[in-house]
């Protein structure tokens, strides 16, 4: 049954026998996801033809500069995009064999907070100021587990202990405004993991926090992920974090995935000029060679978006083909894909 359902799409990724096996072990497979916003110029999708997959228990890092569509992608997967103005115009998102994008709103709500959960960027505003911490954690448990409020409170207490909040019994009855940003983010993590989700989406969970707290929160997420075997999509623009926690990486630029692959491949053998530029812009304590490298220019606004590769305007290798024909996300080595006409770059060194 499930196989029949997946058949039509197999024609799209013709010639890659890997698709079947990776789909079987993958917890989440996103294919050709495209999101449009009402009012945006015609044919310019804010998220365009995004594909990646997350294996069970593994971590995928979604990397890219702000505004490149990372958050929109993750909200689309959670079913939390405000529609309108947003509209999902194409794509599939197979979660455990089930296409999330074809489910009814009710069916999605049944999965949300249960089998997939999310942590947001802004711990200061993400908790409801009018209810206690305990109430807010417990209500998600009651919703999906159908247990009594008292039992859910017990579980909430367990979770607060798990995320290492001091004096958890007291915190259960505390209101969000009585806690610091780091503590609130711990509460958000407790809330997200309360129902043992198979997939956790963490949207820049440490960006809004003090630098000293960032590492603590990240370590906590990692530890809990190992304990529970949850798969994770971690959205970040911090390449140091990526190197530390990712199994797989998907690099996004202007709404498209430009390169995906295992973390070692992305760091040691980046194929897309944008990825190479990103690597060059990481400050390093080890080598100091003059100025910090940057990628010249800025992301073009939607109405000036090139028809072909969206990186054309900033790419040192770009030619007329790049400007007019969008390159496919092509496999360069097993598991390593890049969306560039010139990938693998080694073969074109002479040309550049």
């Amino acid at each position, binding site marked *: 049954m499930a196989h029949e359902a997946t058949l039509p799409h197999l024609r799209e990724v013709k010639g890659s026998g890997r698709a079947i096996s990776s789909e079987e072990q993958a917890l989440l497979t996103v294919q050709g996801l495209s999101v449009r916003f009402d009012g945006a110029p015609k044919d310019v999708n804010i998220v365009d033809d995004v594909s990646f997959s997350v294996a069970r228990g593994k971590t995928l890092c979604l990397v890219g500069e702000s505004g490149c569509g990372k958050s929109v992608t993750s909200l689309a997967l959670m079913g*939390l995009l405000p529609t309108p103005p947003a509209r999902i115009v194409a794509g599939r998102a197979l979660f455990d064999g089930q296409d999330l994008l074809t489910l009814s709103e009710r069916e999605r709500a049944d999965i*949300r907070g249960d089998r997939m959960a999310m942590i947001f960027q802004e711990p200061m*505003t993400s908790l*409801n100021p*009018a209810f206690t911490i305990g109430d807010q954690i417990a209500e998600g448990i009651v919703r*999906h587990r159908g247990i009594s409020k008292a039992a859910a409170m017990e579980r909430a207490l367990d979770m607060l202990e798990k995320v290492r909040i001091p004096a958890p019994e007291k915190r259960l009855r505390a209101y969000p405004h009585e806690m610091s940003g780091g503590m609130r983010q711990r509460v*958000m993590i407790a809330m997200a993991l309360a129902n043992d989700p198979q997939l956790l989406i963490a949207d820049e969970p440490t960006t809004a926090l003090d630098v000293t707290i960032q590492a603590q929160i990240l370590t906590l997420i990692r530890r809990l992920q190992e304990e529970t075997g949850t798969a994770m999509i971690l959205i970040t623009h911090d390449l140091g974090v990526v190197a530390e926690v990712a199994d797989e990486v998907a690099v996004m630029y202007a709404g498209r995935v430009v390169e995906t692959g295992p973390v070692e491949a992305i760091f040691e053998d980046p194929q897309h000029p944008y990825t190479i530029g990103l690597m060059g812009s990481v400050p390093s304590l080890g080598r100091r060679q003059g100025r910090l490298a940057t990628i010249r220019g800025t992301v073009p606004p939607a109405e000036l978006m090139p028809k072909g590769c969206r990186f054309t305007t900033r790419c040192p290798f770009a030619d007329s083909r790049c400007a007019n024909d969008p390159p496919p996300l092509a496999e360069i080595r097993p598991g390593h894909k890049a969306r560039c006409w010139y990938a693998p770059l080694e073969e074109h060194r002479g040309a550049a």
Partner: protein
Amino acid sequence: MLRYIGRRILIAIPTLIIVSVLVFALQKLLPGDPVLTMAGEERDPQVLEYLRERYRLNDPIPVQYFVWITEAMRGNLGISLRTDIPVLDLILSKLPVTIELAIMAMIVALAIGIPAGIISAVRKGTTVDYAANVIALSGLSIPNFWLGIMLIMLVSVRWQLLPASGFVPPTEDLWLNIKTMLMPAFVLGTGLAASLMRHTRSAMLGVLRSDYIRTARAKGLLSRKVILKHALRNALMPIVTLSTLLFGELLAGAVLTEQIFTIPGFGKLIVDAVFNRDYAVVQGVVLCTAVGFIIMNLLADVLYVVVNPRLRHSA
């Protein structure tokens, strides 16, 4: 909590003093001589002088104020110059009528305004939202007296469903009491419902955009719970403020409505007193209204703390 309420009451005291001075001063500034009104056709200077002496109108104004305020604090608001009934008794006989009308009107207003505001916020930009806004705007624009007259013509005269006017105390005939109050309460309530709806809508729209609503939805909660628990609770602050103020206004007397439906309430009392230059009654009624407003404000302050836990610390 108790300390917070205590502090609020203390803050209300200076307000009360200022209000009482204003009430008294306005009274003195009004044209017309109460003694002449009282004396009627009698213009005998001796009678006039006797009356002035009796009502202490020859004393210096600060002394008059002091006498009035100390008596008022002891519950003696003076005697109606026209009817010789103690002002306090007059007020106490009319106030329950107006309170009943105000409560019924408030129930109508809340029952229409809040759900309509929530629905139009949630369905923002749809036909439902536009329809609700058009109805609310008409509700705000249609004068109460016109709506009242139309209702009387339709419901009482043509369909003969409800009595057009009059008042029956609930102790006498509860059913008839409710029947006579229904139309005036509806007329008053719909007017308030419109502004309640607009405020509820804008408060809800603001709250629905917030991050914690997204968190609530990320938990998989159903929209009903997200809206009625997470959003409404946070949108309640402005609604509480507005409701208590509106209720205070209702207590001040729905003058026009009470006139149209000939309800012997506060509004009618104040109109009659002003026309008759019954100074003691006017003073008493205005003071009473001011106290009513202050009590409603106090209630609003207390409700804030109940609704918003962030205020409990400063409390």
